[in-house]
């Protein structure tokens, strides 16, 4: 059970760390100043959440300190899904990923507010309030672009379609899943996927866009078991570089 919990917390922390770093790449180049601020703030939130999760692993579960966990593991030891690894691409893709990912993340925290492992439950109760703003932001912009010009609508639809198999990959099931469910710690990825699908489908439909088929066979899995896309390694090297150059660098 302890190991299954560690596995889950690592998945959560690594997702937040990697996507936080990706989103921070928009700093200074966002399409408008307000969006620049939004992605920088959300990146700061996510990296802070990763740090808090690594701290739980360190203080309660005997794992190395947060800097080592965050920056000094081998690529195959990371448990993030491949979805968060992808480059920021065009703004449409970033927005589609932000929308699809943040709803899934919020649901994961909501499913943990009564987790019997109290440090994780406390974290979930706190972070849930912060993430409300992330999904609010995503929903607003998705609607605006979908109701904008024909072109912005078509681009948004294409971005969702492209992101979809990767998004399904967020819910990859590992050995930890059944153990956590049996222990009443976390209801599991199947449950999370079904809640997520109903939330995002109704927003996508509302915006006048089409929900791609949730075809299991197309899901891009691997990340949760340490098989990553070609994009993770260079990102990790870049992140580690900062730590190597200045070991006292603040997060």
């Amino acid at each position: 059970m302890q190991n299954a919990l560690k596995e889950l917390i690592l998945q959560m922390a690594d997702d937040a760390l990697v996507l936080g770093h990706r989103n921070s790449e928009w700093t200074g180049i966002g399409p408008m100043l307000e969006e620049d601020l939004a992605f920088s703030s959300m990146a700061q939130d996510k990296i802070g959440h990763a740090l808090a999760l690594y701290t739980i692993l360190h203080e309660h579960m005997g794992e190395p300190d947060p800097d080592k966990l965050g920056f000094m593991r081998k690529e195959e030891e990371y448990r993030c899904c491949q979805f968060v690894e992808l480059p920021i691409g065009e703004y449409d893709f970033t927005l589609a990923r932000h929308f699809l990912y943040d709803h899934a993340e919020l649901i994961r925290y909501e499913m943990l507010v009564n987790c019997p492992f109290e440090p994780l439950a406390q974290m979930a109760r706190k972070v849930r309030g912060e993430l409300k703003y992330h999904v609010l932001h995503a929903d607003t912009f998705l609607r605006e672009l979908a109701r904008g010009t024909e072109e912005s609508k078509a681009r948004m639809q294409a971005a969702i379609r492209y992101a979809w198999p990767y998004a399904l990959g967020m819910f990859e099931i590992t050995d930890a899943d059944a153990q956590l469910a049996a222990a009443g710690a976390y209801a599991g990825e199947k449950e999370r996927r079904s809640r997520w699908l109903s939330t995002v489908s109704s927003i996508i439909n509302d915006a006048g866009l089409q929900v791609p088929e949730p075809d299991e066979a197309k899901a891009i899995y691997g990340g949760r078991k340490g098989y990553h896309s070609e994009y993770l390694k260079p990102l990790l090297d870049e992140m580690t570089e900062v730590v190597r150059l200045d070991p006292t660098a603040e997060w």
Partner: protein
Amino acid sequence: METHTKNFTAEEIRSALEQVKDPEIPVLSIVEMGMVSKIDADAEVPVVVLTPTFVGCPALNLIRQSAVEALKERGIHAEVKFDLSDKWTTNRLSPQAKEKLEKFGLAPPPYLSDEELTEEQLNRVRCPHCHSTDTTLRTAFGSTLCRAIRFCFTCRQAFEQFKPVA
């Protein structure tokens, strides 16, 4: 041990913490912000537990250091730590704190009656310049994690808000 010849009360510790400001909100002390969750004055080394406003707030370390310093200045050697055992929400801001925020030009967060942040709750915000409530959210992400940017239709100005967090 010489340093413990005098014991300090929780009130004395709290009063020292009133000198500590959140660098992002320079008009409020961490006491007014509702960040001080517990003071254990009776422990051999007194313990102060602070609750972070935002988990990713970059100023947390600085705040802890300033708290340790402010206590030291009064001869109090205490352990200051952050934890999440108590949840911080904007309802923990005192009424005086909200007044100070508004004078500072930062619209205070509305009182939240439950955990859900509904649109209605998000939009009950008064412009700090002209006090009109005819305002709208421009972006939930301002210059710091705790600030949102709103627009006032009456005086046609953008203003910053301390955003409500449940």
